[in-house]
C-alpha cells in the first residue's frame, strides 16, 4: 500500500490539494484501479480534511465512479432516445444473455462490465455500443456476439 499512497499523494498534488476538485481526483484514481477503493476514498478525504462521508456521498452519486472492481473492458450500451427507438433495449438484452450478467454487473472472469448509459451523443449511428474507448455503430442483436468475440480473442 506504500506505493499506492505515493500515487494517491501525486494525484492530490496534481490537483493542487484543492478540495473542490475531489471528483477529478476520484476519476483519476478510478482510471488507475478500474474502481474506487475504499481505502483510497478514506485516504484522500483525510488528506484534504474532508469528512469521509462526503467522499462516500460523491462516490455513490456520480455514475462514473464505482465502489466495486470493474471488468477489464467496460461495455456501455447507449440507451439514448434514438438508440432506444432503434432497438437498444434488445441489444442490451442480447449482451445480458451472451455475457450472463445483468446491466451493472461484471462477468465472473472479470473481463467485462456491462453498463447502460443515457446517451453517448452519437445518435446518428444508433444503436451505439461503446467498449472502453471504441464505438460500434448500428449494432443489432445478431452483431452483439461479434463484438464480444473481438475482445475475447484479444485475450
Amino acid at each position, binding site marked *: 500500500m506504500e506505493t499506492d499512497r505515493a500515487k494517491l499523494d501525486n494525484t492530490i498534488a496534481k490537483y493542487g490539494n484543492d478540495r473542490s476538485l475531489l471528483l477529478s481526483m476520484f476519476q483519476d484514481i478510478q482510471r488507475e484501479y478500474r474502481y474506487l477503493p475504499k481505502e483510497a476514498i478514506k485516504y484522500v478525504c483525510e488528506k484534504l480534511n474532508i469528512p469521509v462521508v462526503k467522499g462516500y456521498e460523491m462516490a455513490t452519486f*456520480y455514475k462514473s465512479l464505482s465502489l466495486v472492481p470493474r471488468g477489464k473492458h467496460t461495455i456501455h450500451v447507449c440507451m*439514448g*432516445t434514438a438508440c432506444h427507438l432503434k432497438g437498444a433495449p434488445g441489444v442490451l438484452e442480447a449482451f445480458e444473455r451472451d455475457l450472463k450478467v445483468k446491466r451493472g454487473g461484471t462477468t465472473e472472469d472479470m473481463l467485462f462490465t456491462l453498463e447502460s448509459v443515457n*446517451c453517448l*451523443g*452519437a*445518435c446518428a*449511428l444508433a444503436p451505439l455500443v461503446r467498449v472502453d*474507448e471504441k464505438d460500434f455503430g448500428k449494432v443489432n442483436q445478431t452483431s452483439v456476439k461479434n463484438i464480444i468475440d473481438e475482445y475475447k480473442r484479444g485475450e
Partner: protein
Amino acid sequence: MSVSIQRLEEIKKDFLSKQKVFQKTIRVCCGTGCISSGALKVLEKLRTALKTEGLDEKVKVIETGCHGFCERGPIFVFGENDIFYQMVGKRNIDADVSALIETVKSDKIAQNLLYPDPNDKTKKFVATREIPFYSGQQKIVLHLNGYIDPESIEDYIARGGYVALHKALQMKPEEVIDWIDRSGLRGRGGGGFRTGRKWRSCREAHGSPKYIVANGDEGDPGAFMDRSIMEGNPHAILEGMIIGGYAIGSNDGYIYVRDEYPLAVKRLTKAIEDARRLGLLGDNIFGTGFRFDIRIFRGGGAFVCGESTALMQSLEGKIGEPKAKYIHTVERGLWDKPTNLNNVETWACVPLIINNGWEWFANIGTKNSTGTKVFSLVGKVNNTGLIEVPMGLTLREIIFNLGGGIQKGRKFKAVQTGGPSGGCIPAEYLDTPVDFDTLTELGSMMGSGGMIVMDERNCMVDVARYFLNFLVEESCGKCVPCREGVKRMYEIVDRICNGEGREGDIEHLEELGKAVKLGSLCGLGQSAPNPVLSTIRYFREEYEEHIKHKKCRAGVCKPLITIKINEKCNGCMVCARNCPVSCISGEKQKPHVIDQSKCIKCQICYDVCRFDAVTIE
C-alpha cells in the same frame, strides 16, 4: 509580451502562405461519429498512399470536426471542387483509398462514393452544396466545423478567429452587452432566456469575483450539438467566454464538460493551452490590462448536473443537488458569487455577433427567436445528423427536406424535442415554425436541440415510459415530487405497457403530473412530466388502446404482442439459427413455427427474415 492584432495578422499570413504549396485539400471528418465508423483507419491508409505516390507534400489532409452528416460517415470532402465522398472505406477500404488517390490525381469522380438520393437511388450528388441535407442549412455557428483543424489555433486565426475579441476589447463592456441584448440572442441550452439581459444582471450584481461558466454537460438523450461544437471548433467557445468575461467583469471561466465526451475534453484542453501560449488567455489580453483564464471541469456522469445550480454545486466539489433559484445565480451562484452560465452553443454565437453586428444576427430567424439553432436530427429519418437552420423553419421542412423523410417509406408519427423536459409533437403540427415559443405552446420545448423522429413502429406509451425511466435513473433524489412522483408515474405507465392498465390511470397520470410540475425544486423535476403529459395530450387513444383493449398498435410492448411466422416462410432456417432461445422449429424448405411458450419476443427473427414471413401482432 501581450498579443496584438498585428501578431494575429502575422499568424494568419504565415499560415496562409504555408497553404500555398498545397494543390489540393481533403477535409476528413474526425468527429466522434465518423471515428466510430472507421475514419481514422481510412485516413491512415490515405496518408500512406499519398506518400507512396509522392503526393503527400502536394495534398493537404485536414482532420476536421464534425461535418454533421454522421449517418454517412466516414466523410471525405475535396476542398477545391467540393466533391463529397461518403461511407468511405465502409465496403472496401483499399479500393476506396485508391479511388481517393484517383480523384487527387485526375479529378476522376468515384461514383460509388457519392451520396445517393434516399428516395431515388439512381440519382447521385457530387458536391456538398447540392445535397439537400446541406443546402437547406444556414451554418453560422457551425461555419468552421468541417473546415478547420480544431487542434490548430493558427487555422482558427487564419479564418478570422479572435478578431471579435480584439474588437470587443475596444468597446465599452456595457456596449458589448448592449450588442448581445439587441441581437436577441437567447440561451441555447434549454430555457431560452435572453442572454444580454442575463449578462447585464450579472454585471450589475454586487460581489466579486464573478464567474463565467460554459455548460457543456450536454445530457439530453438524442442530442449532440454541444459535443460537435466543442470537438469541432473549441476556440469559438473560448473566444465567446473571454468576451463575456470582459463584458461582465469576470476573470475566471469554467467549462463543465460531460464525462462521456473524452474527445471534447482533449480538444478544449489543447485549445486552452494554445490560447494561453499566444496570450489570448492570461494577463493583459491585447494590451488592455484585461485578464482572463479558463479551466475545464469533467462531469461525473450525472444528468442533473446540466441544471445550472447543480452544475455549480458540482464545480464546488459537492454532489450535484440543485438549489432553489429564488435568488438568481447571476447574483449568487458559484461559491455564492455572481455567476453567468451559458450553454456552449450560446457562447459560440458571441464572436459572430461582435464580428457581424447585432443587426445581422437579429435579421436571421424570427422576431422573438433570432439567429440559427443547431439540431441533432435523429431517429427514424433518412438523413440523420447535425444541422443548423435559421429559427422559424417548419418541422416539415426540417424533417422532410433536410432529413429526406422517414426511413423505409414509413409514416411519420411524432417528433420529440427538448429531451426529457420536452414532449412529442404529432403530424398535425408539422407546419409549425420552430422557435422557442411555439414549441413551448405545443407542450414541448426547444431544449438543447435534440429532434428525434418517430414513425408508426414506435409506441408513444413506450416512449413515455422510456423518458420516465430515464428520469427515475437521473433524478438526484433531493425533493419529494421528483424523487417519488416520477417513480410512481413510471410504475403506472409500465403497468399500462404490460397490459395491466386500469380505468382511471390516464387521469391519475395527469393529476400526478401536474403536482410534480408545480411542486418540484428544479427545472428537471418541473419538466419531468412533459413527455407523459404531451403523449397523453396528442396520443390519448394509444393509452386507451393499451388499457382497454390490451393492444399496442406499434408492436412494441412485449406482453401485448405475439410473433408469428406466416405462409411466406420458405424454410430458409435463418430465423431458427439466430433465435437465442431456440423456439423456432420446422423442416428445411417448409414453413416454420414459433413455440409461443418459449418465445421471449426479442424480434431477432423479424429482423433477420428476408421474406416478410415474420409478423408482429
